[in-house]
């Protein structure tokens, strides 16, 4: 299918687009001050359990939220007041607080109690002590050496607590609605024997689930009522029809199952609002939108109720809705279906077209496989060639086997979708603990040169594995590196596991659970092992620098003896001060990753594979596995800051390479060589996904021939087994201009790290990093 090159959006969408683009915070519905405090206080009021309070809190949020329906919109609903940190403590002596609480129906006598109780609920858990310390006690200092910032840290980071990175079972929500879900829960409450051993525990969760479903039902009802009222006072017939239409839809969804494409989108949007209300926006993603919505689209089109153009417009409106508080809520298109057949449908094209038309969507992923329709690849290439950095491409032929090999049922693996940036999940079936831990391979490499000691501070961070001068050969040295990796990986896993346990106790997610199999059936929250799949995804950062450094040591210290180990260590300690010739030798006389040179690429692959093998041996308290994610996000900058000079010729503090892209400027043999190197990495073992940004000069993708060329590059790279690709199509000159004159040029969107962003909104050091990444011309 070829698409018209014009950006043909209707005047109505143009108006919505203009509204969200100029959003200064004033277009959202007004929210009463202290509304979240009152919601939480009411939720606590009946002495509920923790999971029940969190569920009831959502219900109160929905009850108390200010809502509105703005002109021109057909899709109703704005974000709820968001319950995200920081949450300031109310001062009961502040007259403004008293007045605000009075406004929300509280008596003055209740005010001090509310302030105190809300403070107590929030603060013990969140402020004075970490939830981890409550759940599992304070961590021992020696167990977390190497975490934190600066030279004595950044060997790893660990979270273990899963929030705002999810894709929920919107398919089920659209099919049966919250009333259907509530019915399912109620039936289980009614039918389970009260004396069953784990009934008390299940009941605790199911009661929370009931509140969540009621919150969903109430949300639709409130918008329906508002729309009805507004319709009575509508200024013209057309607007009255619009409002009545909204009322009819909101009376139906998200309480009941959707009956049309428009209702399905409305239900999905409400589901997203509820998700973000309790869990923040960040990377709470929509998943496989073309698959979720297709049955409704197909039925409408077959019945003559919906035209293709109307569907495009609805998708454009959804894009506008998402944009208002845009973070990285990913949409996924294409790929295989659960039977392994190609899943591309009309909607895959429609959503890409809508994305192109509104020109501000920044998180759309396209899944491709060996049998993807060429015209779909071409359309994706056409969008990429426009230079906004979207869509991002995922290779089913790598990630489906990777997931399946890590215990995901094959049909479920085929249903994967990326969250936020690049993190993989099984929508509606997993607690993915996305970006749960981060290991800095380059820091481990540095420590392995210096006997486990940070060379500048002298702190013994890792095990004593000897100085480089003490190793007999490369394999000996590599073994020392692996021992450092092993040590920090174990500390990282330990902290991830502490996080998982702490969340089980302090951070239940009843809404997420209701929309995740098999939480309802098991009667367990998702943080308590309710999900079918429970795993942690662990990012490995600095692979290219580690490989380049290992290669340089192998070639120049152990093989050619061009530099002695002692001399190298001294130069690294001095950050190559007065040793520029040595630095350049390290840089130029040993192969560098990204140039299709098998030896160094294989070292990079080995670095990845050894880490994957190690993580494959780890398990979390709830039996979760540790999936390796070959992705750096932006941590290549702070992690780089804490690593001294490295044997690849990189100076102390310089950024590390992004994900699996070559270190900035080192891929000198062109894009095909870079892709060949990339293809040598173990993408089909990386169940957490892999990532690489490839920079291309716009001239390369100019015109129809350029788009075709890009599609050819993509097809070849994926056939060779590259897992994930993001493309930046911007000239260095243009970026320099943007840096100097952000007012004028700063609105170019560039690929940052698993997401696109306006160049002017990026901090200077990151801008420099992006400029330094190679441009492949020719």
């Amino acid at each position, binding site marked *: 299918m070829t698409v018209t090159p014009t950006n043909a959006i209707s005047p109505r969408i143009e108006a919505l687009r203009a509204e969200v683009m100029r959003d200064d915070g004033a277009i959202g519905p007004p929210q009463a001050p202290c509304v979240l405090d009152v919601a939480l206080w009411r939720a606590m009021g009946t002495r509920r359990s923790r999971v029940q309070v969190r569920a009831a809190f959502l219900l109160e949020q929905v009850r108390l939220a200010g809502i509105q329906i703005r002109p021109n919109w057909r899709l109703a609903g704005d974000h709820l007041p968001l319950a995200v940190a920081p949450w300031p403590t109310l001062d009961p002596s502040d007259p403004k607080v008293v007045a605000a609480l009075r406004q929300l129906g509280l008596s003055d006598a209740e005010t001090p109690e509310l302030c105190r109780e809300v403070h107590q609920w929030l603060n013990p858990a969140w402020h004075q002590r970490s939830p981890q310390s409550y759940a599992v006690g304070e961590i021992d200092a020696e167990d977390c050496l190497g975490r934190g910032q600066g030279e004595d840290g950044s060997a790893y980071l660990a979270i273990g607590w899963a929030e705002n990175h999810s894709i929920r079972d919107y398919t089920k929500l659209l099919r049966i609605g919250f009333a259907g879900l509530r019915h399912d829960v109620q039936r289980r409450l009614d039918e389970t024997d009260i004396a069953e051993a784990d009934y008390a525990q299940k009941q605790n969760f199911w009661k929370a689930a009931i509140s969540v479903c009621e919150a969903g039902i109430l949300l639709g009802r409130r918008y329906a009522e508002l729309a009805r009222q507004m319709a009575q006072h509508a200024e013209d017939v057309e607007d009255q029809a619009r409002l009545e239409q909204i009322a009819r839809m909101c009376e139906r969804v998200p309480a009941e199952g959707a009956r049309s494409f428009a209702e399905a989108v409305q239900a999905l949007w409400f589901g997203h609002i509820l998700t973000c209300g309790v869990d923040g926006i960040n990377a709470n993603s929509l998943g496989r939108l073309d698959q979720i919505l297709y049955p409704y689209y197909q039925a409408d089109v077959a019945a003559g109720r919906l035209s293709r153009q109307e569907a495009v417009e609805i998708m454009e409106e959804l894009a506008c809705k998402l944009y208002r508080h845009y973070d990285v809520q990913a949409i996924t298109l294409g790929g295989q279906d659960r039977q392994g057949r190609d899943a591309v449908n009309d909607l895959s094209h429609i959503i890409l077209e809508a994305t192109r038309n509104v020109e501000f969507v920044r998180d759309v992923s396209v899944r491709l496989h060996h049998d993807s329709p060429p015209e779909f690849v071409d359309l994706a290439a056409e969008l990429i060639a426009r230079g906004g950095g979207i869509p991002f491409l995922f290779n089913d032929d790598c990630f489906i086997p990777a997931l399946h090999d890590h215990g995901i049922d094959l049909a479920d693996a085929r249903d994967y979708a990326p969250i936020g940036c690049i993190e993989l999940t099984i929508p509606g079936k997993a607690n993915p603990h996305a970006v749960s831990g981060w290991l800095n391979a380059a820091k481990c490499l540095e420590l392995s040169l210096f006997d486990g000691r940070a060379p500048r501070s002298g702190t013994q961070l890792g095990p004593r594995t000897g100085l480089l001068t003490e190793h007999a050969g490369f394999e000996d040295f590599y073994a020392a590196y692996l021992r450092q990796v092993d040590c920090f990986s174990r500390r990282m896993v330990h902290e991830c596991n502490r996080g998982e346990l702490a969340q089980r106790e302090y951070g239940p997610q009843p809404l997420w659970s209701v929309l995740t199999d098999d939480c309802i059936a098991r009667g367990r929250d998702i943080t308590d092992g309710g999900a079918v799949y429970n795993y942690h995804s662990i990012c490995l950062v600095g692979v290219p620098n580690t490989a380049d450094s290992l290669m340089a040591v192998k070639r120049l210290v152990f093989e050619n003896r061009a530099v002695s180990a002692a001399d190298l260590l001294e130069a690294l300690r001095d950050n190559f001060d007065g040793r520029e*010739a040595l630095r350049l030798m390290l840089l*130029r006389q040993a192969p560098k990753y990204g140039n*299709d040179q098998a030896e160094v690429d294989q070292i990079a692959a080995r670095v990845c594979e050894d880490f994957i093998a190690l993580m494959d041996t780890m398990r979390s308290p709830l039996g979760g596995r540790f999936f390796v994610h070959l992705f750096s996000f932006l941590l290549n900058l702070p992690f780089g800051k804490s690593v001294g000079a490295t044997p690849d010729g990189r100076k102390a503090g310089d950024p590390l390479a992004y994900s699996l892209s070559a270190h900035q400027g080192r891929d000198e043999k*062109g894009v*095909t060589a870079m892709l060949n190197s990339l293809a040598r990495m173990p993408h089909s073992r990386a169940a957490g996904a892999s990532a690489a940004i490839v920079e291309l000069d716009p*001239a390369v993708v100019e015109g129809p021939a350029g788009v075709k060329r890009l599609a050819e590059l993509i097809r*070849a790279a994926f*056939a060779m087994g590259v897992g994930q690709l993001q493309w930046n199509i911007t000239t260095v000159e243009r970026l320099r201009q943007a840096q100097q004159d952000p007012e004028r040029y700063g609105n170019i969107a560039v690929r940052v790290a698993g997401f696109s962003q306006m160049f002017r909104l990026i901090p200077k050091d990151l801008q420099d990093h992006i400029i330094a990444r190679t441009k492949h011309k020719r």
Partner: protein
Amino acid sequence: MPTERSGRNPDTIRGRIFDIQRFSIHDGPGIRTTVFLKGCPLRCLWCHNPEGIDPKTQLSFLPDKCIGCGVCFKLCEHGAHVMAPDGHRLDRACCVVCGACVTRCYAGALELVGREVTVGEVLQEVLADRPFYETSGGGMTLSGGEPLMQIDFTDALLSAAKTHGLHCCIETSGYANWASFRRVMPKVDLFLYDVKDTNSRRHKANTGVSNEKILANLRRLHDAGAKVRIRVPLIPLYNDHQDNLRGLAALADSLPRIEGLEIISYNQLGSGKLGRLGLPEVMDRKPQPPDDKVLSMWVSLLRKHNVNATSFYEWPRSSPTSILTTSTPR
């Protein structure tokens, strides 16, 4: 001529190249790898790849990159490296291009241009991008210099590429013996054939040779049924004359089976390379790249004589419209 030995073993036939450029997208259809061979019989004043002219290996020196480490002074047995008051200078009169200094110049100021390689070595690098050729209809292009100057190596490389089923292009000045053309013709899927000027007098003045042999070979290739695409570098002040345009139109008319005609606009990259090779500037008048209007005028006129006339970037099989943009003559 560089050392060449007879025999069909790809590991023993050697040639001299100065670059292998992957992801070449302007040297024939699809995504290609272009192998640049050393040595050229022409001396085009505007030469974009002057490092391809001399069949021998040369020393390139970029003073801007020198970090003053002084290692080359010690390594050079011929006293070619001199520290002058204004910095490091290379005395080419003493230099024997032994390459000793290059091995330790980590700053990259000194580089050898040209290396001897076997057919097998080249082929290995060319085959690395095979998946890209397959999706894009690309392959290998031999360029230079003049690839037919190293006919044994070129022929062996083409034969080896053909045994792997690669699509092969040759970019040629046309200035070679017919026997060489006849030898490679069965293995070449497309000739990218330079016609620098249809005016013989100017051709001789600007390239050092007259164009009769070139045009005769072109006609024989055409008549023998080879696929040929004519490439014309458009160099303002040197060959942008109306009589050249008319001559090209007549040429196109007389060669009806020509695949296409590309106008390649001049750029100034070549003159920057002269200094680093120690070669003198040869153009007394400095042309600017032709403007788009002139380019499109030439293309539209030539298109009346050959439907596939385009300026450089656009390959006609993908689209009939041309995108006018500057490019790289050789």
